[in-house]
């Protein structure tokens, strides 16, 4: 059987802490996040950063896999257009992102749950403000709760 991790505890809106997976480009947003650290800026602890060399490495599968495994939001940070360390990787990210967003809309996943931002190495404050903003928006949306799918559904439905 295709494995699904179903150990996620029940989420209630009251105690809900959004879990956001972030993919940061090694050359800009990851550095900006480092700078936010060295600048001792404070932001919500709800984001888990995964480093990639370029936002162009972010396979849409990564975004979906994160959602499928319990992420309430996904945040991709790349270099500003024209600033890509690899010349044009971020444009590819942008194009994929636009198409992916349409699929996500069709799949009922709210817009605010998936975000692409251009944040240069110097823009530590944008890391802070974007994360805080995104956490608040996702918090307002509530848990994504894609996980309790087939097994749970089947079990209950079979019991009817």
């Amino acid at each position, binding site marked *: 059987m295709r494995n699904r991790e179903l150990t996620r505890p029940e989420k209630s809106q009251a105690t809900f802490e959004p879990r956001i997976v972030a993919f940061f480009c090694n050359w800009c947003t990851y550095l900006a996040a480092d700078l936010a650290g060295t600048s001792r800026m404070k932001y919500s*602890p709800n984001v*888990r950063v995964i480093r990639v060399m370029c936002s162009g490495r972010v396979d849409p599968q990564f975004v979906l896999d994160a959602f499928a495994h319990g992420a309430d939001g996904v945040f991709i940070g790349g270099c500003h257009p024209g600033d890509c360390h690899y010349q044009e990787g971020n444009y590819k990210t942008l194009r994929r992102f636009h198409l992916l967003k349409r699929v996500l809309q069709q799949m009922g996943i709210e817009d605010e749950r998936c975000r692409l931002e251009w944040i240069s190495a110097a823009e530590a404050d944008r890391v802070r403000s974007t994360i805080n903003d995104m956490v608040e928006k996702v918090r307002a949306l509530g848990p994504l709760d894609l996980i309790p799918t087939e097994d749970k559904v089947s079990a209950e439905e079979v019991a009817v």
Partner: protein
Amino acid sequence: MPEIRSPGDGANREPPRVGVYVCHCGTNIAGTVDVKAVTEYAAKLPGVVVSRDYKYMCSDPGQALIQQDISEHNVNRVVVASCSPLLHEPTFRRVLSRAGINSFFLQMVNIREHVSWVHLDKQAATEKTKDLVRAAVRRVSLHKPLQKRRVPINPNVLVVGGGIAGIHAALTLADAGKQVYLVEREPTIGGHMAKFDKTFPTLDCAACILTPKMTSVGSHPHITLWTYSEIVKVEGYVGNYKVQVKRKPRYIHEDLCIGCQECITACVYKEGKTPDQFNLGLSKRKPVYLPFPQAVPQKVVIDPETCIQFKSGKCKKTCVEACGERQAIDFTQTEKFEEIEVGTIILATGFKTFDASRHPYYGYGRYPNVYTSLEVERLINAAGPTGGEVVLRDGTRPKSVGIIHCVGSRDANTNRWCSKVCCMYSLKLAHLIKERTGAEVYNFYIDMRTPGKGYEEFYDRLLDEGVHFVRGRVAEVSDWAVHPSEEGKLVIRAEDTLAAFVRRIPVDMVVLSVGLEPQADVQEVRRLFNISCSTEGWFLERHPKLAPVSTFTEGVYIAGACQGPKDIPDSVAQAGAAAAEALALIDAQFVELEPYTAFISEEECSGCKSCIPLCPYQAISFVEDKKKAAINEVLCKGCGTCVAACPSGSIQQNFFEDDEIFEEIEGVLAYA
């Protein structure tokens, strides 16, 4: 080139035995993250055989701890939870190497910059750390043994910008026997420093110390000097850059011109008519000119905008006549493009001064006797437009002079930064003006910033000389007189914050101590060289403290004020440092590159060609006889874009394989 992936990769690998090392970083991490709890948690994760915490993991004993576990506990995968991998990944990779296991069997977890320094809630920070550590433990188990790539270094160096920083870097490298290309866009090297008369705090004559260096550049056997030239294209990678240089036509054959300047004398223009850029428009020059007497190279330039021959084609060409047999003048010259190959690049493109007219309330451009500090540098310069006389526009000497600091600095309306050099050069100008004119000199300052060897002492000296110091940012310069003593003067209005009242001080001359700004074309330049800028527009160094002349692009270094406001000693020091970095690379003869390249599994590839147009480096090609795509690992820079786009999952990126990233994603999200 050795293989990136070790032979036997993937086959019969031993089961992972993970060691987890959680760093306290003193209290930097331990103050916010419950390090013990994380360590205990990690110990229970599948595959983990050792889990330890330590005060400073990067210290020698910390490193020894890991090394020992590798040999004693057969740890074969290492997770270090400490600071940013950009800081210490190389350190810990070396530990693994020393201990005899592949250095890429390491995964770092950034729990300082990304956790302890940015969160306040200890519990949340600890939970986040556990998530990150769990993900790393899962990920590292999938790591493959990798080898760094070695590429040879071309020993030639390109230095961009011929100010004091560029000059110093070029000479340092050339003296070490390296071939240097020094490219400067103006017709002469020398930069801002060539415009100064004296330098603080020692009051050395700028020309006396700069000119010999300029001459050395001009005559150095290892320096190819291209002035009036610009870089238009940069390709390649560390050690192997291909650069295209555009050489603008100066309508003079540089190799034929001997700098006798007879053409200038002979020009049909008897007097100069064009504002002289070098003197900031304070004097006029002819269409054929030498920027300044000590210019290097000593080659004249013809300005086609004003030369009659270019405008009407009907000039008597007395200049050509004067040049005679040398025949150095060539009106048909066109721009040329040169291709050079270099291994390293030093950017020393300098700064520009703040445009004082952006502060309209200081009257620059409105009142003739409001000058910028750079203009006054030229006035004071003995080789300047007034022969060193500090005089007003009408030729008279000022009896009183107000020097306004921080024009275009420390101001959220213009530039927020401190320009660092203005306090000192204002003191210098105050001294020189007082010395030359005997005028009453007033300095209007916000704070007096004189950190530097001999700088505070210089300030002391100026205080003693009886220069007035009014602490307060000037609100206005106007010619509105409300007191008889103010008639015909420029009145400076400022609060004397030390006296705690507003003062109106009438002066004859106002000097605006303009701040330093990034060059106007900094965005184009940084894109050209693939480096970053701070939000302000200064070139971004790799690390503000530990790598201040390196950039995030290997082999590209920055020196001087293009990195941030800097005075001459700092610029020279940084230029020396940049030259040393380049030399270190050249002497190593090769550079090791991260093995993060992409590779295509030949048997899996369907030859759909989707990846080919995506590579900006043309590293992917279609192999016709196999009908499959292939990646040239030398050209691949490891962005991973093709990996993400391969529709059949047949391309992978070393160290960033799909499985590794999926494991990390699922690792951070899995519930404990």
